[in-house]
């Protein structure tokens, strides 16, 4: 450690602290404050819990919450896909590096591009239905985006398509950092592929998987705005309404930032609760912070 006078470290920290106060510190305090006010312009009168009571009564908000909750179903799917594909890649299937490059590619593509391509593919007369009809599967040729029964599942499929790449690469990085002697020892002891996966590989990946679960849960609850905005704008009706879109609509369309702030505060609190296991994981990994 450098031995410096007491004030020196803070001189180095000051620019970053200022920026973080601007981008996080002030907004996080202000959004809580706004959520108790009827905001017009830059501020407004204190109205207690009215904003919260209003969203609790709003059916559209209920839809938004339940859709975010349904999106959580994508998390186990992402975990399953990522485990299987990363383990296969780890076993050095010939060409595994090419597969890795391809499988990670969607994560680099921009969500608007992905969303627009998929929404054209999944039109009622789009390529997906054309292929299904061509294969004689007329009953499967659904109105993927235009029907309120299917739209959310289609959005979820697109999210999985793009986000899986991150899980695969993350798990693979963890696997590549493992000590292979354990695998070899298990193989010599006669453990089959499945036994090695369950008793050797997965236990060593546990923390990485848990980390990915937490991050994916936060993503599904509060980081999928661009998918919904590009693919369906929350429709048809409110079939793909989600909390982020609800915030966006109330703050910037209906000019009711107080209501929107109350929803933002709810998302903030949920994130804070989810951060706790994240920290437990990090300290279990043996590092500080």
């Amino acid at each position, binding site marked *: *450690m*450098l031995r410096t006078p*007491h004030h020196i*470290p*803070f001189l*180095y*920290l000051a*620019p*970053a602290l200022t*920026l*973080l106060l601007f*981008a*996080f510190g*002030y*907004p*996080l305090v*202000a959004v809580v404050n706004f959520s108790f006010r009827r905001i017009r312009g*830059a501020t407004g009168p204190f109205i207690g819990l009215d904003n919260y009571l209003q969203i609790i009564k709003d059916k559209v908000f209920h839809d938004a919450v339940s859709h975010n909750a349904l999106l959580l179903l994508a998390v186990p799917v992402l975990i399953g*896909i990522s485990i299987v*594909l990363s383990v*296969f*890649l780890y*076993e050095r*299937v010939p060409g*595994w590096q090419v*597969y890795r490059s391809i499988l*990670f*590619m*969607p994560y*680099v593509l*921009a*969500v*608007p*591009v992905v969303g*627009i*391509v998929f929404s*054209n593919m999944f039109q009622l007369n789009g390529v997906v239905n054309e*292929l299904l009809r061509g294969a004689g599967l007329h009953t499967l040729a659904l109105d993927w985006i235009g029907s309120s029964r299917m739209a959310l599942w289609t959005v979820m499929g697109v999210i999985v*398509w793009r986000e899986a*790449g*991150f899980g695969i690469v*993350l798990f693979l*990085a963890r696997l590549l950092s493992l000590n292979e002697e354990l695998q070899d020892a298990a193989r010599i002891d006669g453990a089959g592929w499945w036994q090695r996966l369950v008793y050797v590989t997965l236990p060593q990946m546990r923390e990485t998987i848990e980390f990915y679960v937490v991050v994916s849960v*936060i993503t599904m609850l*509060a980081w999928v*705005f*661009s998918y919904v*905005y*590009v693919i369906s704008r929350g429709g048809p009706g409110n079939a793909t309404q989600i909390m*982020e879109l609800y*915030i*966006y609509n109330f*703050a910037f369309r209906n000019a009711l*930032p107080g209501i929107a702030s109350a929803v*933002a505060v709810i998302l903030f609190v949920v994130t804070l609760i989810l*951060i706790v296991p994240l*920290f437990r994981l*990090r300290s279990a990994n043996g*590092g*500080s912070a």
Partner: protein
Amino acid sequence: MRFPALRYSVDPAALFKHGVLMVAALSVLLPAYFMLVTAFKSQTGYSLNKFDFPTPLIIGNFTTALRGGRFFLWFANSVILSTGSVIVSIAVSTLAAFAFAKMQFTGRNFMLALNTALMVIPPVVMLIPLFLFLASIRLIGTYSGVILVYAGLVTPFSIYLLTNFFRTIPHEIVESALIDGASALDVLLRIMLPLSGPALVTLIVVNSLWVWNDLLIALVLLPQDNLRSLMVGITVFGSRYNNDVPVAMAGMFLASIPMMVLYLFGQKYFIRGLVAGAVKG
């Protein structure tokens, strides 16, 4: 006829793994294939067959797309936003990470933990106060206001990554420089930074990708037509051409070229950087 050699070379397990990976790779590539072939079809060609290879190749969709959308302007706007915020974030994070990694002070571990927590707070939570605050100081719809927002939002990750990297630089190197009479700032600029090339490249790649791909913040904070980022631009473009799929796909193809080229050449930095936030440094 029998091929005895094959009996030994085909391993059903390996075949199965290949099969699964192949299916996964195909499902990743199919939308890309669709985008590419559709971009070269005429509208009638597209309505007749949506999946086959285009004959003849129609280039006109690209000129229509370029006329219908302001791709170069959007692209330039996104470059300005990404470059500006990456520079600001790296500048302030380098200083802070140096203090975190190499100096002793009260509250250090607490502040580092707080910084890590900020990495997962979704931007939508901060968006309303940021909007109102920027509006009150007349920085809505300006590059500088939005660059500061982006720089602030990616800074927790920058600090996290650089702090972990600086910690791996052996302290003996720092000590010997100090004995030679170097100041703390000398140590940072002349010793730490020149050794940090890979970490800085990773940071540039990950942060640019983050800013480049953001839609929500650009949508809210840069409402003017001529300040649209590429993401906002192509979203508008996509809905304008939702009845002319070939032109829409040509536009999407144009919009993907920059990041795809970067990915092809700098893949390891993408992978390393995006994994870095998750794995202990």
